[in-house]
């Protein structure tokens, strides 16, 4: 939304070939991340948010590929047209990533110090000693006590929270312009989650990088992001500044996510769920992809795939309610709930 965004993803389409035909995991996604901004990328499992993240780093391999008309501009340069060698200079250097499972994301047979130092060795061509010093410095930066000692330890010797701090330290070595955090707190205890989010906010303040925060947890987004992109079935379905989204969510899917969020002091004894599940990416439904789970869907939703309607300043929504808002007053039972098809999630 800023005039000169750091990251500008345009019409990203990532397809995997499967036995059931091509799976359009990410299907025409566009969004931007401004300099120093934190953007939340939200959606349930299977909506394509992790594939979006991996596509930005071009780490899609095997059966997957990014379609030709996609563009990922970082500081004005299209990452998708870079030769692989130049792309390697971007990874871990300009764009770094932190992962959901810190234990499996770390190499079990390499000391954490060496794993952090490796980034400085590759990108800054640091000597062994310089790189080690850098690793210790990074461990201190992410709040690990006794960093000289910890640098020589292996991932299995650290606690879950400390491992995630190591992963963050590894990502921050080169002061990247963009940090992609893929569910960074999902695998951690609730108390540790808050610490990690605080740490991210703190290093962002200090280093000034942008963060793309991928999560299924709107609570995490509310605390950290300034803008939210909601994905569903491989598409962006809503995008809004975080306050506006929480005050006035437009898309029925976002509404559903909000209602599924536990609230302190809430009166409901059971959390609401969205009936049904995300359809298979090999077979996106015709028309609106959320239609069968939607309490407002009508025949237009089946006939026409909704475009992104402008709702307000910086607020877009992929829902036909934008042109017939009065229908929101008359919800019905969604098809998925009525037939019980695909229920479970």
């Amino acid at each position, binding site marked *: 939304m800023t005039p000169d965004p750091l990251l500008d993803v345009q019409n990203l389409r990532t397809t995997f070939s499967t036995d059931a035909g091509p799976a359009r995991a990410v299907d025409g996604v566009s969004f931007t991340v401004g300099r120093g901004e934190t953007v939340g990328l939200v959606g349930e499992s299977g909506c394509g948010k992790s594939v979006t993240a991996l596509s930005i780093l071009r780490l899609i391999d095997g059966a997957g590929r990014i379609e030709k008309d996609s563009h990922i501009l970082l500081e004005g340069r299209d990452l998708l047209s870079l030769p692989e060698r130049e792309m390697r200079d971007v990874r871990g250097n300009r764009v770094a990533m932190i992962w959901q499972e810190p234990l499996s994301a770390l*190499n079990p047979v390499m000391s954490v110090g060496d794993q952090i130092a490796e980034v400085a060795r590759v990108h800054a061509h640091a000597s062994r000693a310089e790189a080690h010093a850098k690793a210790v410095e990074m461990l201190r930066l992410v709040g690990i006590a006794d960093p000289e000692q910890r640098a020589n330890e292996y991932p299995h010797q650290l606690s879950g929270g400390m491992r995630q701090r190591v992963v963050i330290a590894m990502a921050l070595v080169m002061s990247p312009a963009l940090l992609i955090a893929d569910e960074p707190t999902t695998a951690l205890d609730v108390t540790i989650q808050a610490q990690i989010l605080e740490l991210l906010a703190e290093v962002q303040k200090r280093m000034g990088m942008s963060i793309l925060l991928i999560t299924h947890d709107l609570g995490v987004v509310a605390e950290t992001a300034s803008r939210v992109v909601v994905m569903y079935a491989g598409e962006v379905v809503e995008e809004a500044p975080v306050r506006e989204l929480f005050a006035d969510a437009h898309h029925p899917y976002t509404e559903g996510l909000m209602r599924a969020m536990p609230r302190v002091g809430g009166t409901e004894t059971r959390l609401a769920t969205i009936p049904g599940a995300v359809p298979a990416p090999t077979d996106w439904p015709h028309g609106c992809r959320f239609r069968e789970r939607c309490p407002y869907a009508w025949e237009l939703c089946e006939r026409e795939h909704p475009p992104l309607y402008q709702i307000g300043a910086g607020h877009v929504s992929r829902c036909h309610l934008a042109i017939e808002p009065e229908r929101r007053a008359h919800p019905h039972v969604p098809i998925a709930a009525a037939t019980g098809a695909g229920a479970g999630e």
Partner: protein
Amino acid sequence: MRRLLAARAAQAVVVVAVVATVVFALIHLAPGDPFGAALESGRVSPEVRAEWRARYGLDRPLAEQYVRWIGSVARGDLGWSFSRNRPVAGALASALPNTLVLMGTALLLSIALGIAAAVLQAARRGSLVDRGSSALLLVFYSMPEFWLGLMLLLAFAYELPIFPVSGVVDPVMHEYMGTWGRFVDRVRHLALPALTLTLLLSAAIARHQRAALLDVARADFTRTARAKGLSPRAVLLRHALRNSLGTTITLLGLMFPALLGGAVIVETVFAWPGMGSLATSAIAQRDYPLVSATAIVGAVMTVAGSVIADVLGATADPRLRDA
């Protein structure tokens, strides 16, 4: 680590004792005795044979023989070899180094070759190189060692006489060679038997190592390594290879007895005067003390092999060090 070693040492004593007992029982249950061949030749009268049996205690009940034998083995006395007419310990001392040289060479070469092939295959997965070398290694993997040995002999000692047919050194000329000449002589004699074992073993190592590498290539931490901006080569060599070595180390520990068995056959084919040749001739001649002693040595080597594999495994993977 120290606790692990102590436990394994205690285990080793038990294993060796059990193997010694079983082999003792088996060889005594087999028909014949050390003097059978001599008796049947007609040169020895049954009276003389009975006297010999009495002299060596072979006329005593089996239980008594066993107790006396295991007692002396426990004291470090392996007894007297009938067929070699020398102490068993002496016969072992001249054969064991030959076997260790053969097995050690084959082991080192096959680890190097097997891992190199696996890395190459994993790096070029699905390519012609991968499929071609996999197929070739499968051919070696499925060959019986005696046949491969004979084919190598036919090719490189007979059709193209590059290497000698048998033995450890040239029986005549070795005495007259200088230091360098003697070394070359030994290497030339070692070449074919070591190559036979190496081809078989490296095929097994390469197959398992390739699978292990491809397994690790799917792991999250290899993706992390790529996200750090590492080249595919660095990801493979620095991250994937070390993580996959555990499989090969375990495999080698398990394959050690098979390697020993293979060495026995290869030694026979190439008339290599090692433990294998010693054991086969000892069995043929019912040389009870020597048969039992070779079995004990085999058991010790097997246990040692698995202990070494454990130690190496713990070195490669820090998670095993605290176990």
